[in-house]
């Protein structure tokens, strides 16, 4: 299409939608010249052009057209992206509040499921359709009605509860009126605002409580400011100021004497170690304010604060022209509504109300919490945060009559108020100085009707939710059974239930009215004369021709003559479209002349002037378009960055939640093997540049030699190690769990201490996200395996075991650490066991009366026990029981307390076939016992240090009892043929030594399920 209705930005300054109709047109009017007629004409031009835009061959390919197209695309992208962000933000907010519960282990399983469903496909919706055409048509009718008659939604906004309003507003602001840069939708939305505002004014008894409570209107304002134009404005006006302020992290501008006093005393105490008597603690505000030292600290701060506040004020006032039309228009409504309600109201009173919207609900929230308005990336540190709050308070005081009886110290800022009060009031009244849009809106609606392809991109759930709300409040909304709304609702029947998030679809719903048909006959519909239509067509055709003609064409040389232009076009070679246009323009010229509108004798001066003006206007329009494009590109980038941030945040939560859930559901899940991820290597410089390292004690000349490795041995678990080039081993190692990091982030705890460097928690999270989340594995199966496990025990068992161990609160797990002190000690246990076995064997080889070897075998066993105890102690003392440790422990125990005693007894004489069978039974019992221990240990109650409270079945080291019995036998010489209780069935195949019963009993006790032995 060749001419856009004026863009939103230029809106406030241009007088109408149709930007190319000059104000001096009255003299061309054929009939009456009244204002209403005039405005109608103006809009008709827009309508005309909009209709002709359907004709493809009229499209122009010049710089302006291209620039306009870029701008249009950009606006569409911003509209849809800001909607996405709005939805994402809601999800993140919801999860923010839930994640704390999850971290504290206080969330029931159902709720976990609910949270999880919130996360499913939160980001990518699929395209879809309505189940059938009939539905498509009916919902198309309904939404057309809702869009073009905002009063229904306005009414609905008053009826719904505060709990329902958020989702309604989301649909309204980002979907039904989602084209945030389209005049018609914007204006309809504002009409809705007006309706709700009017209601509010009519129903608030006292002016003092007007617009103060949180109502549908205030919620609408919040949502409205989140749309593209509001965000652009805040960013343009506030961003630079806020950023330069928060850079000064350590500048304390506190002026509350109490706080100043306290900090002063604390500082003195810190410096000198004691507090002088004349500075008692717990003074009153007055005492603090009178303290001369405090006064001395505060005085310069007042000046600095005032300077800051003034510079903020300055940019806000200078930004008058950038203020979004909609925001200004709302201010205007507030003014006119209060004038209507309180005819005697002074300007001051009205300004108070305007300030209650503009400053209180739009500017100041962004100043106080800039991060939630995408103005900065991180929460500012304490001092700048306080400074920002003070500035916001000062600005708010300007807008209202300040009551210094509240905080007395604020009175010190009175000079600022006095100096700027007038200025601010003037500014706020100027804010209200914008055009209304009703006339153009009426026309825009015609334009919409004339467009045959009006569409709405909406999700099925939005449609259903809106339907459900309408249905719920049907009695109020559609009292008249014959109203259009009522008829449509009856046709639609009951509202369908909400679909699960997974099944929700985005659809393109064609909108049209059931009652009005598209306008075909313009002249009839709009009550204008043929002459007017011809004139407009002539003008637009000439403009098109002149934009399309080659720049060096003779016809474009001044003095410009329309007949020459038409001629040039009609005779252009190889361009049928232009030729057609040329011929048409000739026809129009002669028709207009016949009708007496223009005159050949003055070179069609009337038309020529308008064409020239239009071209001039288009020239400057291009500049504007380019400038606006540049600004919006900036906005789009911010919005996209913010989107990345939100998606990242969701991703983190998702993986965390996934861990928690897969642990608690462990049993039912199918497992997949998964490798540890990483290590990823980062240099010191790299991390410093990205802000991950926020402070570093590493001397500059060493930095080049320092690097970090990031590993994720298990999903949700990370090991960061600090390395020095050339050295094999890391200098430091830090174990991190995702939930710890999240908790730190929640607590606004930014520092992660790694001795030599301090990491920034949010940045670390972002980095981990980027590195590990993209790999399918992190969000995939939770089973992080360590290769060793699977080779030593049957795969099923090992996996189950791992799951259970993960489910239990086993603390840190890291492969490198697994081989630290505790595990080394366990290895020693195994060493003793095997040495004992070797000694027994050596005894068998030697002479039966050489007891040395058998003694050695027996002595190794208690040593094994000693190491067994030690490793547990060390592990608990160091607060980590590792997966490796568990495995090692069991395996070593089997050798030392299972195999070794059995082998020893074999050496001592239990050598008959039945003996050996029973000994084997004993060893197998031990084996089973250990395996079961590992599997069930997680399920047993534990005390606060992570130790199980009791053993199920006797623990395997009890076999040392048998070993000591055997030692006694050896000391008495009761071995081989002299074993106590002799031999049964001697000489037969079933020959057996009854003492082997000891082993059988011990074996049974070990595998018993009912014996509970309390742990020491």
């Amino acid at each position, binding site marked *: 299409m060749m001419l856009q209705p004026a863009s939103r930005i230029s809106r406030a300054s241009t007088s109408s939608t149709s930007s190319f109709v000059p104000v001096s047109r009255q003299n061309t009017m054929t009939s009456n010249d009244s204002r209403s007629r005039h405005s109608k004409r103006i809009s008709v031009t827009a309508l005309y052009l909009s209709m002709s835009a359907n004709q493809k061959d009229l499209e122009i390919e010049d710089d302006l057209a291209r620039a306009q197209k870029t701008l249009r695309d950009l606006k569409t992208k911003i509209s849809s992206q800001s909607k996405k962000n709005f939805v994402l933000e809601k999800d993140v907010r919801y999860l923010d509040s839930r994640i704390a519960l999850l971290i504290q282990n206080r969330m029931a399983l159902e709720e976990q499921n609910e949270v999880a469903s919130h996360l499913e496909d939160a980001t990518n919706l699929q395209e879809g359709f309505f189940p059938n055409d009939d539905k498509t048509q009916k919902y198309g009718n309904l939404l057309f009605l809702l869009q073009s008659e905002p009063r229904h939604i306005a009414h609905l906004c008053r009826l719904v509860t505060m709990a329902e309003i958020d989702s309604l507003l989301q649909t309204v602001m980002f979907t039904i009126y989602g084209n945030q840069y389209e005049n018609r939708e914007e204006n309809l939305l504002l009409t809705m605002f007006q309706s709700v505002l009017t209601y509010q004014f009519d129903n608030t008894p006292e002016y003092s409580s007007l617009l103060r409570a949180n109502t549908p209107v205030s919620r609408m304002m919040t949502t409205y400011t989140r749309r593209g134009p509001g965000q652009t404005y805040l960013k343009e006006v506030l961003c630079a100021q806020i950023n330069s302020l928060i850079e000064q992290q350590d500048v304390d501008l506190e002026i509350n004497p109490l706080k100043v006093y306290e900090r002063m005393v604390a500082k003195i105490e810190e410096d000198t170690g004691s507090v002088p008597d004349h500075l008692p603690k717990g003074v009153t*505000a007055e005492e603090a304010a009178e303290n001369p030292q405090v006064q001395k600290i505060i005085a310069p701060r007042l000046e600095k604060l005032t300077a800051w506040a003034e510079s903020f004020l300055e940019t806000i006032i200078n930004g008058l022209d950038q203020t979004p039309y909609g925001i200004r228009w709302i201010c205007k409504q507030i003014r006119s509504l209060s004038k209507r309600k309180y005819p005697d109201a002074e300007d001051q009173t009205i300004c108070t109300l305007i300030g209650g919207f503009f400053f209180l609900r739009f500017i100041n929230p962004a100043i106080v919490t800039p991060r939630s308005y995408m103005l900065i990336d991180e929460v500012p540190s304490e001092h700048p945060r306080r400074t920002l709050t003070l500035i916001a308070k000062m600005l708010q005081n300007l807008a209202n009559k300040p009551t210094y009886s509240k905080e007395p110290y604020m009175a010190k800022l009175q000079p600022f108020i006095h100096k700027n009060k007038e200025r601010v009031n003037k500014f706020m009244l100027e804010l209200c100085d914008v055009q209304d849009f009703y006339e153009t809106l009426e026309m825009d609606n015609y334009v919409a009707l004339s467009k045959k392809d009006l569409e709405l991109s909406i999700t099925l759930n939005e449609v259903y939710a809106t339907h459900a709300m309408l249905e719920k409040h049907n009695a109020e909304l559609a009292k008249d059974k014959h109203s259009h709304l009522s008829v449509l609702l009856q046709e639609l029947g009951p509202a369908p239930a909400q679909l699960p998030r997974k099944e929700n679809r985005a659809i393109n719903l064609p909108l049209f009215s059931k009652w009005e048909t598209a306008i075909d006959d313009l002249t009839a519909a709009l009550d204008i004369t043929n002459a007017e239509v011809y004139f407009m067509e002539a003008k637009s055709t000439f403009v098109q021709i002149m934009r399309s003609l080659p720049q060096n064409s003779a016809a474009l040389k001044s003095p410009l003559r329309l007949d020459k232009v038409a001629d040039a076009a009609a005779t252009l070679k190889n361009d049928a479209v232009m030729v057609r246009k040329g011929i048409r323009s000739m026809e129009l010229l002669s028709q207009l002349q016949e009708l007496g509108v223009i005159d050949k004798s003055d070179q069609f001066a009337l038309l020529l002037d308008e064409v020239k003006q239009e071209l001039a206007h288009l020239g400057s329009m291009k500049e504007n378009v380019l400038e606006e494009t540049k600004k919006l590109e900036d906005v789009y980038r911010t919005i996209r960055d913010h989107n990345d941030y939100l998606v990242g945040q969701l991703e983190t939560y998702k993986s965390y939640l996934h861990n928690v859930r897969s642990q608690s559901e462990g049993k039912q899940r199918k497992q997949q093997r998964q490798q540890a991820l990483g290590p990823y290597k980062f240099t010191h410089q790299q991390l410093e540049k990205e802000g991950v390292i926020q402070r570093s004690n590493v001397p500059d000349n060493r930095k080049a030699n320092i690097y970090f490795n990031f590993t994720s041995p298990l999903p949700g678990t990370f090991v960061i190690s600090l390395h020095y080039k050339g050295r094999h081993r890391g200098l430091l190692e830090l174990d991190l769990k995702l939930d710890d990091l999240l908790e730190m982030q929640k607590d606004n705890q930014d520092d992660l201490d790694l001795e030599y460097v301090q990491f920034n928690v949010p940045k670390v999270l972002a980095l981990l996200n980027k590195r590990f989340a993209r790999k399918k594995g992190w969000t995939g199966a939770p089973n992080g395996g360590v290769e060793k496990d699977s080779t030593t025990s049957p795969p099923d068992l090992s996996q189950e075991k791992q799951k259970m161990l993960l489910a239990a609160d086993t603390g840190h797990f890291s492969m490198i650490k697994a081989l*630290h*002190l505790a595990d080394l000690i366990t290895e020693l246990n195994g060493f003793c066991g095997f040495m004992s076995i070797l000694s027994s064997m050596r005894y068998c080889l030697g002479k039966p009366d050489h007891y040395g070897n058998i003694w050695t075998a027996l002595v190794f066993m208690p040593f094994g026990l000693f190491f067994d105890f030690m490793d547990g102690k060390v592990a608990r003392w160091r607060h980590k029981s590792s997966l490796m440790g568990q495995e090692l422990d069991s395996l070593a125990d089997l050798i030392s307390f299972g195999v070794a005693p059995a082998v020893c007894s074999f050496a001592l004489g239990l050598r008959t076939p039945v003996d050996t069978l029973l000994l084997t039974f004993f060893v197998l019992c031990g084996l089973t016992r250990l395996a079961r221990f590992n599997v069930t240990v997680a399920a047993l109650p534990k005390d606060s240090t992570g130790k199980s409270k009791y053993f199920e079945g006797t623990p395997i080291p009890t076999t040392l009892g048998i070993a000591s019995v055997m030692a006694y036998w050896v000391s008495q010489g009761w071995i081989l043929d002299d074993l106590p209780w002799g031999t049964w069935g001697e000489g037969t195949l079933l020959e057996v030594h009854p003492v082997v019963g000891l082993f059988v009993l011990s074996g049974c006790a070990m595998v018993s399920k009912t014996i509970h032995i309390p742990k020491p």
Partner: protein
Amino acid sequence: MSQRFDSTASPTALVSGLLLDSRREYNIVVLGAGGVGKSCLTAQFVQNVWIESYDPTIEDSYRKQIEVDGRQCILEILDTAGTEQFTAMRELYMKSGQGFLLVFSITSLSSLNELYELRDQIVRIKNDERVPIVIVGNKADMEEDRAVSRARAFAVSQAWGNAPYYETSARRRANVDEVFVDLCKQIMRKDSATAQVREMESGHRRRERPNRHARRRRQRVERQRCTIL
């Protein structure tokens, strides 16, 4: 915050309320929807003045010393913004607060409904169902415009573990001191209770609730050094 009372929690210190450092400081946060009269209530309590004018709050803080049960207490009172656009600031207040005045206006049902979310958030952040809370129905002088019945307010109070409910009027200065004193008493009671529990715990090593890993977890993010090089 509460740790600082450990030293004074011994019975002797409790008896000798005259000791200088037994003056306690309590952080009180006043929360509630916009325009319900939080600031008026606070100003009446702290400064004995009535404010008629329109002056929405962003964040104000006050200090007042009062005597409760014969003991001197210093109350640090934070008057917050009821305007919904400032919700992002809430979390910080809640972390620092020990007791909360949840204010609504008896002339607006939706102002009572807004308290639910606030209370939820407090409980969540404090991780404690029994945080000291007082529910305040303000503007009691506007009986003719009443939109919230007493019964309804009591029902809310019951649902929230019998948090005391007061009806106040900042304009007439009715029940103003009472709400602050009640809250202060609750905090003090809680304070000495936790001190006792702590003493008991140190004897029995009994855990408060089996499922709370939160505290332990926090300590887990700590430096782990590689000892074997």
